[in-house]
């Protein structure tokens, strides 16, 4: 009897915890769902009943149609993809190389370099924007994808290196020694070890990608031209200018958010690993 009471008590406690979390989940994704729902409505539908589902009268895909007809939208998408993928790839490559060097050739200098990158994680690089802009003007890189990629790699590399160092530390020496005995040079040895740190690479990629795709500051300074504008900046300007076309506006917001929500849902484990490993040092 006592045992049964205990079980009921545990179950009701469990239910309470679930309800509590569901309440927070609702606050977290409720607003997003409201926006997605409204992206499928006519302007009338958006304003007469913002919280209602679209019905036969208020259902409309015009917003999406007009978002795509806006010539810049697709180009902005491509720009953001090039910049995000380019920066992430470069960050991953540089971080792996540096982290391998730091763990493999453990010297005083290696410790100093690791310390430098640890401080770098917290460095507020946006405060160096005046000089970054000067540099880009000087090298004629204003309004190019490269300008943003260079800056983003500079910002992302410290966290990437520190994360990869923790990953390379877990690799046993046997494989490396075996490779060296087989006559592999240092770079080849690095390549042989690389598959073992795949989870780390995924974590670095996931945590690098997100802030770059969403960044507003550097696109606002370095790539304001229509040809190289990123999606985030494009939407920002769309919000500022076309406040009358609510349908297209809401549709483009949804289209802008979807890639990262999808990516994150797929890679949430890697992302969370990156976040908690990277900043806990």
């Amino acid at each position, binding site marked *: 009897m006592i045992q049964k009471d205990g079980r009921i008590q545990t179950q009701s406690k469990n239910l309470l915890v679930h309800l509590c979390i569901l309440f927070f989940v609702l606050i977290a994704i409720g607003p997003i769902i409201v926006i997605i729902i409204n992206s499928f409505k006519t302007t009338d539908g958006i304003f007469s009943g913002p919280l209602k589902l679209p019905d036969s009268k208020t259902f409309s895909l015009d917003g999406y149609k007009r978002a795509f007809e806006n010539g810049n939208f697709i180009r902005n998408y491509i720009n953001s993809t090039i910049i995000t993928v380019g920066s992430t790839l470069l960050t991953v490559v540089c971080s792996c190389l*540096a982290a391998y060097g730091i763990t493999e050739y453990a010297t005083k200098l290696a410790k100093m370099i690791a310390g430098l990158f640890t401080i770098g994680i917290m*460095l507020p690089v946006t405060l160096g924007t005046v000089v970054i802009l000067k540099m880009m003007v000087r090298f004629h890189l204003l309004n190019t994808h490269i300008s943003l990629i260079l800056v983003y790699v500079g910002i992302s590399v410290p966290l990437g290196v520190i994360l990869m160092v923790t990953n390379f530390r877990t690799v046993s020496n046997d494989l490396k020694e075996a490779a060296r005995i087989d006559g592999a040079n240092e770079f080849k040895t690095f390549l042989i070890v690389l598959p073992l740190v795949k989870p780390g690479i995924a974590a670095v990629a996931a945590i690098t990608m997100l802030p770059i795709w969403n960044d507003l500051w550097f696109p606002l300074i370095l790539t304001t031209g229509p040809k190289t504008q990123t999606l985030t900046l494009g939407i920002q300007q769309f919000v500022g200018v076309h406040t009358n076309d609510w349908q297209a506006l809401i549709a483009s917001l949804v289209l802008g958010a979807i890639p990262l929500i999808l990516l994150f849902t797929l890679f949430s484990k890697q992302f969370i690993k990156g976040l908690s490993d990277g900043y806990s040092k």
Partner: protein
Amino acid sequence: MKSRNMMRKRYRQLVLFTSPALAFFLIFAVFPLMGTIYISFFKDAVFVGLANFKFLFTDDNSSTRLLAAFLHNCEFFAIAASVQIPLALFMAALLTSGRVRRLTGFYRTLLFIPSTLSVVIVGFIWRLIISPLWGIVQYPLLGEKTTALPTITLMSVWQYLGIPLVFLYSALLSIPSNIIESARVDGASDIRIFFRIKIPLIAPQIGIITILTFIWTFNGFDIIYALNGGQPGPDFSTDVLGTLFYRTFFGWDADQGNQNLGAATATVIFFIILLGTAAYFAIVQRRLKVSQL
């Protein structure tokens, strides 16, 4: 002799492997920051010592703006830290309580989704939801001087809650289970275990997420700019150091931008962040580590 050669080889390999990452980091992160401090002592390529700082701190208009922006940042940080971190801790505690089991990952992913959105989208979503056009909220929260900044801060809290949540969640998970078990055997309740054992054990992580929130909010710009532009109203009531820096350096409307004054503003912000972080590590974090033992 041989070992000396070995050492030299090791150093050469170390430099080879780390140089690409170092090059990016030094050229595009460290150099611009140092360069910014350097050019804040100049005016149109002429060395003027501390004149730019003197202007920022003593000119009527600019000192008012600087102080106001600084106080707004303090308010932003105070609200963000006092709402976000306890809430995140509470949710992390629920997720790691062992009562959610299989759904833990699912909940965690959903709770994190707002953090994957760009501020432009977050700003728009919330502006629409609280706008009188939709009529869910009748009061013009963003239009009144007293409520505008807290409202924007809470939007930011909503967006980034997932980051401290995930961080503290991992910290709670890493507590050795035998500590918890032995406390439970001694008859301690869940709530007592949480406050007396778990929180002291993860105090260093709570400290780190607090200082990261400090750095992020004092360096913040995006959400304010996305909602209110470079001259954030009403009547500068949501102006923060980030938007002040942008305006000083890049200009806004009729105001001309000024590189050197912009650099000086950035330098001031940099030192505020540096001092805050250094003070934190010198005073708080050390004690937390000691108390952990």
